[in-house]
């Protein structure tokens, strides 16, 4: 037999079957139950990534954010968008063998919705109705915790997704401090069996450890902190970044009294967002003047991110309340947020403010110099986007960040997909004085050499069911990966 062509190059366009995909995440997801969803948006986003392996929703979104059928094959609504009828895909079974009927779908979604909505099941469809219009219902159903599941007799949940949960770690960490969950391919998935045989997820792995594991071929997919991305690229590691999906923002305490909007404006004008994005976050972030990133709203360019220290000083001079020290708490305890908070404090001090940065546990401690009684309060928050519909996302943000009932009520009045109204509502939120947008961050993952068809959605949904592994190729090229690890004698 003759062999032509460069032998090292293998053709590999169509997916291959087999193998275990090893994933590491920083977040400690403790439960995969749509009924008990995490409040913290960052943990909720990580939970959603894992839940999507096991569960499915009525509707999904394509790469352009357009609603597409998942468990529902079609839908229709009345003129006012108060009543939506979804026809379910027939013959779909949960992983425990139970048929996914409209009754099952309605029973699983009902506890996830607020009381203002009714969910009814009939022969082949599910109807959702409300006294108020639901223009974003499709986007809402396609995200967050709105999964369809079957509650089994032992209290566990079964889904229709591409993987079965075969091991959940509980609270028992391994020697490296990580929790390990295992998902195995669902051969009977209506959408087709995934290409990998299983997905092994290590939860609660530190960012530093993840980089090492990727380099040594002990992991195939890891999640990078923003300050690691540049070094990872320099080290030749394969990375992928989503569109900006996380907002770092300063939230001024609304109690006991609402903050003076001029205070927020003065602080906002003092902040050098470009320096935070380009220097501190090593070009991994984007300056944020509004709450929603440009790719989501289309109008983010209308919000200014300009720094004007002189104007900030002038405004500060007009404010009696500015004389009080501003306490800035860093939530989440991660290093990136801490660095950004320190930088905000430096900028604000240059404009004449007194800002004290504290960790989550520092505030209000007895005898602390940061006693809440003598200071104005604020916190630096990380917020992960929850929806791709502007109005729904603003509503979720208001609820998660505690931006007030008035804002929530104003958002409810927005009719349908009206960008002018969404913009006006977002403008009102930003100028309301309680929230100061700082930077948007993408989600960045590192990929092992064997990972193929990594085709996540732009907003970060991973779609691990489409990923496949080319272990032979990673061994042939000598790139980091499990096969090359064996060649170099490194131990897992």
């Amino acid at each position, binding site marked *: 037999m003759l062999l032509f062509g460069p032998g090292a190059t293998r053709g590999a366009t169509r997916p291959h079957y087999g193998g275990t995909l090893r994933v590491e995440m920083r977040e400690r997801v403790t439960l995969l139950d749509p009924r008990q969803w995490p409040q913290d948006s960052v943990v909720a986003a990580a939970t959603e990534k894992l839940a999507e392996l096991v569960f499915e929703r009525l509707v999904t979104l*394509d790469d352009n954010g357009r609603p597409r059928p998942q468990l529902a094959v079609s839908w229709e609504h009345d003129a006012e968008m108060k009543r939506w009828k979804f026809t379910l895909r027939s013959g779909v079974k949960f992983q425990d063998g139970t048929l996914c009927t409209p009754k099952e779908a309605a029973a699983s979604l009902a506890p996830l919705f607020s009381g203002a909505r009714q969910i009814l099941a009939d022969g082949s469809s599910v109807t959702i109705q409300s006294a108020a219009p639901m223009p974003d219902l499709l986007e809402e159903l396609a995200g967050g915790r709105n999964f369809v599941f079957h509650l089994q007799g032992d209290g566990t949940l079964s889904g229709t997704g591409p993987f079965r949960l075969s091991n959940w770690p509980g609270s028992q960490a391994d020697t490296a401090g990580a929790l390990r969950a295992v998902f195995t391919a669902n051969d009977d*998935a209506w959408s087709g069996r995934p290409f990998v045989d299983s997905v092994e997820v290590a939860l609660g792995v530190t960012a530093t450890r993840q980089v090492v594991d990727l380099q040594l071929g002990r992991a195939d997919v890891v999640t990078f902190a923003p300050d690691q991305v540049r070094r990872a690229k320099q080290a030749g590691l394969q990375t992928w970044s989503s569109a900006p999906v996380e907002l770092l923002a300063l939230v001024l305490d609304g109690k006991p009294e609402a903050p003076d909007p001029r205070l927020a404006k003065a602080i906002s004008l003092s902040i050098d967002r470009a320096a935070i994005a380009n220097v501190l976050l090593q070009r991994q972030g984007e300056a944020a003047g509004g709450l929603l990133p440009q790719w989501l709203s289309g109008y983010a360019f209308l919000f200014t991110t300009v720094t004007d220290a002189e104007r900030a000083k002038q405004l500060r001079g007009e404010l009696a309340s500015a004389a009080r020290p501003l306490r800035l708490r860093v939530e989440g305890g991660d290093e990136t947020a801490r660095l950004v908070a320190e930088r905000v404090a430096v900028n604000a001090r240059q404009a004449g403010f007194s800002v004290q940065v504290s960790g989550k546990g520092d505030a209000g401690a007895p005898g602390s110099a940061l006693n809440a009684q003598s200071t104005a309060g604020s916190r630096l928050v990380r917020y992960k986007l929850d929806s791709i519909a502007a109005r729904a996302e603003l509503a979720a943000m208001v609820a998660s960040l505690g931006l007030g009932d008035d804002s929530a009520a104003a958002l409810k009045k927005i009719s349908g997909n009206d960008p002018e109204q969404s913009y006006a509502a977002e403008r009102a939120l930003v100028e309301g004085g309680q929230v100061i947008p700082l930077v948007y961050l993408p989600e960045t993952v590192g990929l092992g050499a064997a990972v193929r068809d990594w085709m996540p959605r*732009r907003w970060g949904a991973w779609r691990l069911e489409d990923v496949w592994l080319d272990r032979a190729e990673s061994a042939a090229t000598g790139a980091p990966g499990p096969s090359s690890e064996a060649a170099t004698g490194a131990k897992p």
Partner: protein
Amino acid sequence: MRIGWSRPGTEAVLRYVSVPVCGQLKSPGFRRPVCLSFFFLFVLGFSFAPEVKGGVLEDAARQLAQKIAAALPPYVPSVLTVQNLSTLSEAQVSSVRSALQGALRNAGFSLSPDSGSQGQIRVTLSESLAEYLWVAEVRRGESSTLLMISFAKPVGYSRADHSDGLTLRKDLVWTQDTQMIDIKFLDDTNSKRQRMAILEPTRLAVYEQSDNAWKIRNSFSVERNTPWPRDLRGELVGLYQKELKGDTLAAILPGFGCQVPLQSASDASKLGCSATGPASEIAGKPGWFLSEGPILFDTVAEHAEAKNFFTGQLAGENGWRAKVPPFYSAAFLGLNGRDPGKFLVSAGLDGHAHLYGDAAKELAAFAGWGSDLTTVLSDCDTNWRVLATGSQDWTHADTITAFGVSEQGVVAVTKPLEFPGPVVGLGPEQLPALGELKGRRQGAFAIIRNLQTGNYEAYRISLSCGG
């Protein structure tokens, strides 16, 4: 030749027509082709892709102009600026600017390049994930108004895209935002209708050309109880169906097949589907036809159950059997313009392409090709060529290159033809068994998933002479 067709009470038969190419057969090759069926003429040369309905952007521009006119009295001399933050091309922006200017002038505006004008209209063409968002900031003196319109990004036909100067040429013939598995053009010589069939995971859609636009003629639901493989593949072929005494359009999918009489493609009840499909049976399972360009062979390949590749089991008439290593795609070809069907070329699971000769004997292996290939007969020199995809995964833009194959090896005869996404399907242009060789240029269809838009696009690939 008779091939098994497992629908109760029916059987499918490939019709034979002698054509010169078949007459050239001199030596038995890998398998002898059983030649062709010509009950349709395939009309080439017509315009595949109706032009973009350019009115979408212009209509939006007029809509925005109306809003501006309502906000700013027309008698105020105004300066109009347009900036683009979206993915619209320069040409499209220019078109929008012209439409805006025209609409504003029609509304009585006096547009001036003078920045000192009383009115200022600053239009920003922006976009979100799913929509275009155009923002007009209208200023008059100290007062300012913000106006917005949004509209969904259109999905539809695209203008033909010619790659001038390349021997291998692509023409965009169809775009849609849902998954496409195979596409074939049908042409009924009796009625002169131009029809197109598109196979999707859940339906077989038949379109008809009318007023220079494709309109859906019928949609046949393709449903089965067991799940499809995640990387679903399928092929459209033409068969003569003895029981129905007519020609049928058959959709062959893994472990499944459907067919509809072509003459009654408007009658949805005529679509018959079964778990065995319109193909020869191999070990009790349906096989897929292998083709040589547009020629449908009686040789079929067994598709692996619930996977995306073929097992390598081949079967033909008179109980003929052969086994080659598993492959993702395979096609027959002749050498030096002779002996069609003498060789089989496959894209193996091992990442190599393999050339087989008599009795499935492997003659050569090639590296660097992707998983999809097909064969075409060049008009220019009457040589068979292999069209092969590139070797990266589906996160990358792909290429198709034409290779010449000889006993001495393979050589690229064209530059790689680039696509805006991975090639997820590659097959003969004509409906196999319905094509005609004489006087026809032999081409292929490539289906790609556009990485920028997420849409599925079908391209006609052809070899043109002289570069």
